[in-house]
């Protein structure tokens, strides 16, 4: 029996009216917000409290996977240096908290803006390249950011930055080591916002432009799509999400160092996107959740952990080469005729 999660989910959604949709969405969001209450159940992770795992790695990685999905999944631009934007966000938080009195919420927009700026700079330089060449250059960019941080004593060099303050208490929510669920809720809000924005863009001009670029860049250009501009936008959008994840991560971890932003992270995030199903938001979310949860769950076997992780990837990619929930447009035959009359 094959379980077709996407189709049954999509059918449920397609058949629902407006109020039912609000109800479903509300129930799902509520359930996801309530996840920290499952602390202590079968979901428990051995070496880290479940509530913490919900924020990092799960929440942060889901957010980053969503951002990278716009670049890789929607626009077809293979970016192997996505960690760079995460690092820019995290280091913005680190440096600003070292030299200023700004709190996390004030730093967040600055971190996002700087990540976008780095996305613009990188994109403007490399987006004339295609395919493998683009991948190699972005890979290099990710490493440049890390190595620059490693060799700059002003940002602590290899020791990184310590004592980054937690966010201040907001709306009665405390943000510190004893209240990990607050962080989870914040990242969850960002994830929901990101999903809403991406869903909106997908059905409008930018979504079509990205999609056409992914499918045939030359024809897209000849049909009037400013491919360079929209590729740049994809990069900048992806960068902004990565930057936001970086700021949040730094404010929770209170400590950042260059080795956290190694090239492995870029590959891991890319693995989430491919594993879940390129271009499909829900596939990417499920992929990122599973692949960041499983390694935490099986942490007790320590060294063999990554081996099993790899095995899961290989088995999965053989069984479902297009990912867990691949992108597949559902055709609505017959609807068109009615609409046009």
């Amino acid at each position, binding site marked *: 029996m094959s379980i077709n999660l996407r189709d049954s989910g999509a059918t449920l959604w397609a058949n629902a009216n407006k109020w039912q949709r609000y109800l479903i969405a509300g129930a799902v969001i509520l359930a996801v917000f309530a996840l920290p209450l499952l602390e202590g159940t079968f979901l428990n992770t051995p070496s880290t409290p479940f509530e913490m795992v919900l924020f990092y790695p799960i929440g942060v990685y889901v957010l980053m996977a969503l951002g990278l999905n716009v670049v890789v999944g929607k626009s077809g631009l293979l970016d192997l240096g996505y960690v760079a934007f995460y690092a820019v966000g995290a280091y913005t938080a680190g440096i600003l908290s070292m030299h200023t009195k700004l709190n996390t919420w004030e730093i967040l927009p600055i971190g996002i803006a700087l990540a976008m700026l780095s996305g613009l700079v990188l994109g403007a330089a490399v987006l004339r390249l295609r395919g493998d060449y683009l991948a190699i250059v972005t890979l290099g960019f990710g490493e440049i950011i890390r190595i620059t941080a490693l060799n700059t004593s002003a940002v602590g060099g290899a020791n990184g930055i310590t004592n980054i303050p937690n966010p201040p208490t907001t709306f009665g929510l405390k943000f510190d080591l004893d209240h990990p669920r607050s962080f989870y809720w914040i990242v969850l809000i960002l994830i929901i916002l990101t999903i809403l924005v991406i869903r909106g863009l997908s059905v409008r001009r930018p979504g079509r432009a990205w999609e056409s670029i992914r499918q045939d860049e030359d024809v897209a250009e*000849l049909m009037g799509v400013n491919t360079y501009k929209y590729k740049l936008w994809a990069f900048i959008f992806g960068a902004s999400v990565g930057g936001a994840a970086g700021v949040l991560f730094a404010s929770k971890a209170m400590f950042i160092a260059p080795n956290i932003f190694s090239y492995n992270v870029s590959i891991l995030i890319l693995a989430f996107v491919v594993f879940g199903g390129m271009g499909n938001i829900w596939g990417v979310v499920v992929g990122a959740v599973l692949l960041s949860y499983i390694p935490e769950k099986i942490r007790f076997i320590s060294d063999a952990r990554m081996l099993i992780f790899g095995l899961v990837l290989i088995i999965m990619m053989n069984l479902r080469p297009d990912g867990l929930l691949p992108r597949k*447009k559902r055709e609505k035959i017959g609807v068109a005729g009615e609409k046009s009359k």
Partner: protein
Amino acid sequence: MSNQPVLELKNLTMQFGGVKALNQVNLQVNRGEICALIGPNGAGKTTVFNVVTGVYVPTQGEILFNGKSLKGKNRHNITKMGIARTFQNVRLFGEMTSLENVLTATDVHSKSGLIGSMFTTPRSRREERAGREKAYEILEFIGIDHRADQLAKNLPYGDQRRLEIARAMGTSPEIILLDEPAAGFNPSEKKALAELIVKIRDRGYTVLLIEHDMSLIMGISDRVAVLDFGEKIADDLPSVVQNNPKVIEAYLGVPADAS
């Protein structure tokens, strides 16, 4: 019919290494006419399309669109100015629906970009709705509106070709370049296509057409230009071109008794 030129090629030369794909080609396409571009395989017909739409930069010569030079213009800007094309081999966005294919083209004239779409500004919403209406109208005009929500790759071959024309019309062009739109069609499909092309012209578009099917060309063209080895060897009314010895020679070779 006015004799106002929409598209003018002046001494156009396109050289690839030692090969001159186009050599000093002059061509004028007037507003509201169906101009056919014919010639044996490898004569340089598609190269003309590629140079006009900005895929290649001509080695020499100039292209004027409504009197303005296209020199240094980006491909998407040329499209925006009013030149649209189809492709010899169908090149649709297969993973998108027919409607989305046309919408991608109608987007060329919308003013709202990413920011507008992100915050759903009134303008973005208005343009989105207007685009959809226009795209439906074009699909209806072409006669494939019943395929609007089907993926382009799942369309039957004939409808894919028609969708290519619809997508080109989506950019609201003044001139449409059709590259062998009847390739692979049976006689009745060809007849329907000929009617469609005339209908497109009557709607106010200018058509430049590459085609191999002579009966189709001769039936609907107002003028026929013939290319052979990158040079224009004839440019006249269909009936005149048909009897031009140079054209006959290019297609059939020199008669035995003449050599």
